[in-house]
Every structure is written in structure tokens, then in C-alpha cells.
């Protein structure tokens, strides 16, 4: 079968790509999607370890992560819609009222 290391390396690569997307993109919705990508990478690590150690606890925790991501997406997107309506733009560089 496939060694667990392969899954962990894939999880690390996806997490790194999520960080790159989070830092370099300027649209707030794309940044949010990068957060979801990072959560997915972590889920993959959970399931890989759950299979490797023959305990089902990892998969149960993945269900909780998915639920928390859903709740966060709902509230976060609501806030994004309000902010976009106020600022008339989805660019994070425009939301700089607190800057020095």
C-alpha cells in the first residue's frame, strides 16, 4: 500500500500552497478559500494518521473540522458581504483605515 509519508508530504505541500495563496492574493474571497485549502490539508493529515495507527479517532475529528469550517464560512461570508457593501470593493488593500 501507500506509505503514510506520502500523504504527509502531500498535506504539507497543500498547506504551503494555501499559505502562499493567503499571502499573495488580494481578493478577500480568494483569501478565504486559501483558509479552506489549509483546513483540507490538515484533514488529510488526520485521516492518514487515523489509518496508519488503526484508530478511528482521526476520522471523527475530521468531521468536527468540517463542521467548524462550515460555520466559519457562513459567518465569514456574511461579514465579507457587509464589508464589500460598505467599502464598495473586495480588495483587502483598500481596507486600510487603521493604517498609520
Amino acid at each position, binding site marked *: *500500500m*501507500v*506509505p*503514510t*509519508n*506520502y500523504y*504527509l*508530504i*502531500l498535506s*504539507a*505541500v*497543500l498547506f*504551503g*500552497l*494555501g*499559505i*502562499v*495563496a493567503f499571502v*499573495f*492574493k*488580494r*481578493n478577500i*474571497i*480568494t483569501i*478565504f*478559500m486559501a483558509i*479552506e*485549502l489549509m483546513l*483540507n490539508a490538515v*484533514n488529510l493529515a488526520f*485521516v*492518514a494518521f487515523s*489509518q*496508519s*495507527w*488503526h484508530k*478511528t*479517532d482521526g*476520522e*471523527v475529528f*475530521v*468531521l*468536527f473540522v*468540517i*463542521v467548524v*469550517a*462550515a*460555520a*466559519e*464560512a*457562513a*459567518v465569514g*461570508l*456574511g*461579514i*465579507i*458581504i457587509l464589508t464589500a457593501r460598505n467599502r464598495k470593493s*473586495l*480588495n483587502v*488593500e483598500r481596507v486600510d483605515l487603521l493604517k498609520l
Partner: protein
Amino acid sequence: MTAPVVIFFVLAALAVLAAVSLILQRHPIHSALSLIVVMVALAGLYLLLGAEFVAAVQIIVYGGAIMVLFVFVIMLLNAGEEERTNFSKLATYAGIPLALAIAGFIAAAIARSSGALPAAEPSGALTSTKTLSMLLFSDFVYPFELTSFLILVAILGAIVLAQREN
């Protein structure tokens, strides 16, 4: 090159290509579609790991509900393409090679530490939904009830945010 390893590499390549496409696309709707491809590829990897229920939940909840929410918001806000901006030269010429070096270092560290993991090879046994649900409702019943409370709070938050100012 046994069949599971081949399937793993195909799905892993698909996931990484879709994640790179998420970074490189200019329009948020194309990034959303790339993320959906990542999630479907990850569901395939969960199936390869024997977690069939988690794979189905990943597609139904993540791919069929959360990403639909993203797609709706992008359509309703009429998000346009990102404008071109000039990055600092330092970020491009020093940042990306440094990020790749860090990722390579972490990957090499993981690959070299194969002796530390208790069982390096997953056996590919299928996790039955019954095992999962027995755990969920006996050992993890407290987090389970807390997440139901969390969802209720999120629903109330979304309703409050959607109200207009009177």
C-alpha cells in the same frame, strides 16, 4: 508500482495542480472551481485510505454546501478579475525560492523520519460507518453536542448580519 500507488500519484498531482491553479487564476470564480477540484481529489484520497464515510461527507458538505456558498457570494457580489499590481521585486525573487526551500526542507525531514512513525504502511482496511458512529456518540458525544451549539450560533450570526439597518 502497484495500483494504489499509481492512483495516489494521480490524485495527488490533480490536487496540487488545482491548488496551484487557485493561486494563478485571476477571477475568483475560477479559483473557486479549482478549490472544488482539490476537494474532490482529496475525497478520492480519503477513499484510498479506507475512510469512505469521511469521503462522502467531504463531497456532500464541503463540495456541495460550503463551496456553493462561496460561489453564490462571488456571483452576487459580482467580483471581477483582480487588478494587476506591482509586487516588490524582493518578494518575487527572494520570497518564492525561499518558500520552495522551506517546503522542500520540511518534505525531506518527513521523508527521512520514516522510522519514527509506528506503522509506516497503512493496511487499507475499510473503516465501517458503524465504528465511526459508535465513537462519535460514545467517546466524542460532548464535542458533538458542542458543535451543534456552534452551528446554532453561526446561524444566528448569519441572520443578524443579514438584517438591514433600520
